[in-house]
């Protein structure tokens, strides 16, 4: 152990490590609760909607990361499991009166017409149903490996979608279902996110999690060690499918309309993007990646809707001076429909080409890492002048960017 790391470890605060961690986690959860309370009462509806989406996307990213990042099974069937969860939850939530009016082409199955459960049960059963479908998919297709598995799961997702379109008496076919009660508040969505996090973290810390990672790293070696790899692969797949179903159910109640077209390959692609961007095999990465990309996707909407010249000039340094000089023009730069997805795909390509491990690689957030970072700040600050001398060009750019950010914040 070098001198520096020794002193670093000696500077740990007096609390025992685990107790400190628990305290910190509780404090963060309390802060999250305060934030949610504030958000629910003071933020506008659009922001709340985006926050909800962030939570749901994080759940979906975590579930795919469990299957792909931690067990190494390339699955492209997530949209199918989401669809199963969404439809199950919807059928359990709709009131009998709604069901009587919504099914136009064929009558709804009689045993479904009157069934009605509370929200939490409906979401949970959505997850269970998705896990059952996951089991049906997994039993045959997990005999395969690599990209064949991806294609087989993609095939199953398509089959699920075609089934939904054609079973009119259960799912209302291609028309979809409208007017799903919007029970999904911020509390529910973030609650489910915390539940997912808790389950997945404790699963991965257990022996089962070690088996998953062993299968990911080398399946043949794992089976030589006496592990029943098939069983553990199926197990991981079903747990992932469960949370995908939960995510689908929450999506359904969030946007209150579902139809089979929603659950196409694009949806799976989005979730894959969250996971790859955040870092395969990193829980922190999945959460950060999904939340960042959700916000970015919302923010990029201005490209499709068009943007006002004045608004655009406001983002430039001395933009207000420009506006003063040339007069407040209200020229609208027209939006380009579809451009958002182009940028999104270019971003995925850039991540996979230039930074294959994603934002965080397979690193995780930990409290000891966090405190080490906090304690290292004074040292880092002291070394800034040296660094600036060594890399003057980089430093100049950085200073300019910092000035720009400061200017953006004080401008309002």
């Amino acid at each position, binding site marked *: 152990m070098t001198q520096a790391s020794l002193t670093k470890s000696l500077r740990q605060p007096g609390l025992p490590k685990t107790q400190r961690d628990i305290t910190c986690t509780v404090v963060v959860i309390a802060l999250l609760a305060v934030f949610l309370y504030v958000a629910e009462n003071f933020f506008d509806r659009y922001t709340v909607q985006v926050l909800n989406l962030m939570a749901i996307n994080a759940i979906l990213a975590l579930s795919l990361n469990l299957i792909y990042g931690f067990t190494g099974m*390339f699955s492209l069937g997530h949209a199918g499991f989401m669809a199963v969860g969404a439809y199950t939850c919807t059928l359990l939530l709709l009131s009998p009166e709604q069901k009587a009016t919504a099914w136009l082409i064929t009558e709804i199955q009689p045993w479904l017409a009157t069934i009605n459960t509370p929200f939490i049960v409906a979401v949970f059963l959505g997850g269970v149903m998705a896990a059952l479908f996951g089991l049906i998919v997994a039993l*045959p*297709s997990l*005999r*395969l*490996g*690599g*990209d*064949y598995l*991806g*294609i*087989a799961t*993609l*095939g*199953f997702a*398509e*089959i699920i979608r*075609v*089934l939904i*379109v*054609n079973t009119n008496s259960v799912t209302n076919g291609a028309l979809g279902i409208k007017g799903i009660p919007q029970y999904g508040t911020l509390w529910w969505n973030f609650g489910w996110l915390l539940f997912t996090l808790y389950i997945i973290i404790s699963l991965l810390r257990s022996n089962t999690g070690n088996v998953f990672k062993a299968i990911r790293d080398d399946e*043949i070696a794992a089976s030589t060690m006496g592990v029943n790899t098939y069983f553990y692969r199926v197990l991981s797949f079903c747990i992932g499918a469960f949370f995908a179903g939960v995510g689908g159910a929450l999506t359904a109640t969030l946007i209150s309309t579902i139809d089979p077209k929603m659950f196409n*390959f*694009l949806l799976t*692609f989005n979730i*894959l993007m969250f996971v*790859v961007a955040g870092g395969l095999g990193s829980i922190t990465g999945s959460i950060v990646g999904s939340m960042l990309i959700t916000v970015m996707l919302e923010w990029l909407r201005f490209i499709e809707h068009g943007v006002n010249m004045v608004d655009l000039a406001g983002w430039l340094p001395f933009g207000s001076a420009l506006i003063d000089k040339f007069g407040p023009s209200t020229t609208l730069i027209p939006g*380009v*429909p*579809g*451009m958002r*997805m*182009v940028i*999104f*795909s*270019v971003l*995925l*390509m850039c991540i*996979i*080409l230039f930074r*294959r491990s994603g934002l965080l690689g397979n690193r995780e957030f930990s409290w000891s890492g966090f405190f080490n970072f906090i304690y290292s700040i004074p040292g880092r600050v002291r070394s800034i002048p040296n660094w600036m001398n060594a890399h003057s060009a980089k430093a100049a750019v950085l200073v300019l960017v910092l000035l720009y950010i400061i200017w953006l914040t004080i401008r309002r």
Partner: protein
Amino acid sequence: MLDQLAALLPNMSLAMFIQHLFNALSLGALYGLIAIGYTMVYGILRLINFAHGDIFMLGAYMMFFSTMAFMPVWLAILIMLLAVLVFFLAFRKSQKPIPKKVGLTLAALALVYIVLGMHSGSTWDFTPPWALAVVFAIVITSACGITVDRVAYRPLREAPRISALISAIGMSFLIENLCVVLFTGLPRPVSQPAMLVQPLELPVGESVVRIVPLAIIVPVVCIALVLLLLLILYRTKPGLAMRAISRDIETTRLMGVSVDKIIAFTFCIGSALAASAGIMWALRYPQIHPYMGVMPGFKAFIAAVVGGIGSIQGALLGGALLGFMEILIIAFWPSLSGYRDAFAFVLLIIILMWRPSGLLGEKMEEKI
């Protein structure tokens, strides 16, 4: 004998059945043509080229723009020059003769094309004769295929295979959305030349079979293209190099083959076949839109897997099987037509369970 056959068919006349057979044959030939592109790339790189279906779509769009939507001359020239540049960059300093010859031929064709295109119609509208438009579409689409390989797959040759697969998915979405931006997402009607769709009437027994000439032309063109491909694969040096790469890429490199150029050539051939399939598809089912490549792409990939991935004959067999299955099941049981898109996936899963290496493929063992 005809009567006996007719008696075997429930709820269908013999004439109907023959028409369905021809429809199935042309659909199967189209699936087969696309599947060859998948199977060649998979055979060499072990990569599912998800963007192949979109290359197919680009072929249809290029044909559409050069014949029906009246591309301005300057744009046509610009695109053509870009394509020639791509070919030049991909095959420059090539020791093997064929890619160089292909490049030279393309450059010559481009000149002829530009000169002829300038002389037809007015100065601004660009409506070349049919044959030239087909060449134009195929050349541009092959250039797109080479670009896709260069941009999205070549930097990832040493990376884990799954990374390249994600890159392929990203590329597929990029092409689709770029086409939505450039050409709008609206479906466009394609006008079919009357000589290709005026039904031929053949008497069978008492009834009359009506067959669209396209349903005969498509399989014939398909077989001609495949024969050409087999000629390239088994009678030329680049073909030999391709077959060598699919056996063992490292050894082939050690033998002094410039592997990247051969791979670019593979993409070029696959994309050219996909483009010709796209053109014929647009004529057969006369509507094009940016997402038209997704389902045929999936199905053609399934055809490649069913036939045994890596095998050209297998891809054709799988395509034919898929085409016949899709048309005939719906013909016999019309109530199943809602499940049309699911047949292929069900077949895929059955094949993967029962014989993962496909009907004609070689069994691949994982090396430890």
